[in-house]
């Protein structure tokens, strides 16, 4: 297995880093994988409007782990993934999120990894959304729901834009311009649909802005520390200044899961990230996450991810 661990928010740096780890020589705009690692390559594009892009298109020869540690700098990235395993089953989605939290991705051996990553600084995002009618709502929503990712399935329209972006018959004289226009279409479409979703949610929830802020406090209290027992529902209900039953209903609508399932999901994600970093023993992870014994952790881990911590 190849491990690529970093805390970079510059794709140019990241590409150099990947090349170093894989012991490859990068050319000006990308790397070509060597046979033992896989077939295909990674390409870097800098668009005229200031965005950076990495285009991954390869079949992995062995497992490759990408692990990004927490970063202080806040940037945002789009990932459009189209992953096909050896049986031809495809998994495709589009993600948008803050790059600050840790994040990992395993490219399993023999899967075809096609992924387009777009990096934008916080400034860039604010400039773009700042001049839009729906911009404030989106910016609020993005900072509110951070660090969670927002995602959508790739539908036909996204696929069409994508295939135009990676069309090998593209006139190379115009590559930067053509790709930039498609990237902007993806961003536009994603945010337009996100806006629609948010307004739908707000209408359904009939939640005031004040209530949303207080629910956010509840969520923070819930996932900030896993080493001790989570706050009880009564305690949370005091933070939220609403009755326990109202809290439960609103929480689930906003975060999609019941209060303690949300807690558990975040706890397991943290466990997985810690294990993948290879810096902690299983015992340490269990202590950090408030498990009295390693077996309980292993059992819950298996239930969530369908694999034992030892298999990582």
């Amino acid at each position, binding site marked *: 297995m190849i491990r690529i661990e970093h805390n970079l928010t510059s794709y140019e740096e990241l590409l150099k880093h990947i090349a170093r780890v894989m012991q490859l020589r990068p050319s000006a705009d990308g790397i070509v994988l060597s046979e033992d690692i896989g077939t295909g390559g990674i390409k870097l594009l800098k668009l005229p409007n200031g965005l950076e892009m990495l285009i991954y298109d390869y079949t992995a020869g062995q497992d490759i782990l990408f692990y990004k540690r927490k970063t202080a700098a806040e940037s945002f990235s789009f990932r459009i993934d189209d992953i096909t395993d050896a049986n031809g089953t495809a998994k495709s989605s589009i993600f948008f999120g803050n790059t600050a939290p840790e994040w990992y991705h395993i490219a399993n051996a023999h899967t075809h990894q096609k992924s387009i990553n777009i990096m934008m600084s916080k400034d860039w995002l604010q400039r773009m959304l700042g001049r839009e009618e729906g911009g404030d709502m989106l910016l609020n929503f993005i900072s509110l729901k951070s660090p969670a990712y927002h995602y959508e399935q790739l539908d036909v329209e996204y696929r069409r834009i994508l295939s135009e972006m990676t069309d090998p018959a593209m006139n190379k004289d115009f590559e930067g311009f053509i790709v930039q226009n498609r990237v902007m279409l993806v961003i536009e479409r994603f945010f*337009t649909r996100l806006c629609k979703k948010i307004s739908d949610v707000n209408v359904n929830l009939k939640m005031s802005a004040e209530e949303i802020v207080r629910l956010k406090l509840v969520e923070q209290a819930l996932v900030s520390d896993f080493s001790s027992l989570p706050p009880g529902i009564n305690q949370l209900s005091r933070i939220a200044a609403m009755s326990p039953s109202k809290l439960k209903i609103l929480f689930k609508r906003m975060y999609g899961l019941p209060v303690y399932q949300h807690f558990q999901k975040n706890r397991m994600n943290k466990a997985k990230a810690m294990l993948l970093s290879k810096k902690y023993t299983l015992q340490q992870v269990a202590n950090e996450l408030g498990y009295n014994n390693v077996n309980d952790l292993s059992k819950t881990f298996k239930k969530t991810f369908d694999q034992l911590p030892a298999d990582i």
Partner: protein
Amino acid sequence: MRYSDSVYTDFIQTCARLFNTKAEKNYLTIPANYGSGYMASFMLPEGISVMLGDTVFKEDLYLQRSPSPNHQFFILQFNEAFVEREKPVTGLLDKDVQKVQQNMVLLTNSLIQSKFLLPAYTRVKTVKLIFEKQHLLNILRQEVADKFMSVYFSQMVKKASTEAIDAGYRVLLNDILKVTDDHPLRFTFTQNRVLLLLERFLTHFLERLQDNERSFKMKDEEVSRLVKVESLLVKDFAVPPPTITELSKISAMSPTKLKKDFKTIYGLPLYEYFQKNRMMRAKDLLMEEKYAIKEVGMMVGYANLGHFAASFKKEFGVLPSELFSGEAK
């Protein structure tokens, strides 16, 4: 009306003065005594000035832009005109006046004087851009930009128009003019489509230059007749399209010549072009997420939903019902 503005926000103010009205937030509603419709302008972050318009005037409007010898910039315009009432143009016109009913894409240079006629009772949809050479250099390599400029302007001098508004342009133009205030990302939406217009114009011109030079050899007058044929072909999809015989009469060309020249300009045989446009229109309607698939089928002239679905799949590779379904195989 004479003007020499180099930014469309100024141009809108000039127009407002002409119509004795005020333009707020660079948006001008045409007063009822002059006509109807609106003009609007804004600036893209790259510094490209954009003007949109969807207007009908009650009198012929004659525009003359004086050359600006000290400030070189380029003007790219996309015009589409729909004659609502035929009326002979009053007064005498210079020979070099551009008529907007040509449905053409036109690139001009600030060093040249340009004259335009917007005839009365003609609905004109327009998107215009003002940009400088630097803008092209931001998106193109120097030698590509230079080649484009030199070839384009040498063609331009020989013939007034070089590129017809086809289905691809029309979709973008309509999107730009149709977008309303309640679009949450209106600015980005408009900007993206304006840049796609520019992209399409640049790539088309250079590709055609490589592929064949035939379309440049066609007579201007023939081109304008073909433009008319095209507009009739895509006017209304709810009714069957005109036949070749009808079209050949309208264009005063033999069916063979009509078919050949149409393909040269629009890139596809007549009825394939019709069908493609019909399907693009259907997709547009579906993407609005306002109509049922069946309704859309009817709107583009299919009585049978199965036929519609099959044609749609032939064009886009997916059934109308799969358009939003995520995993398409």
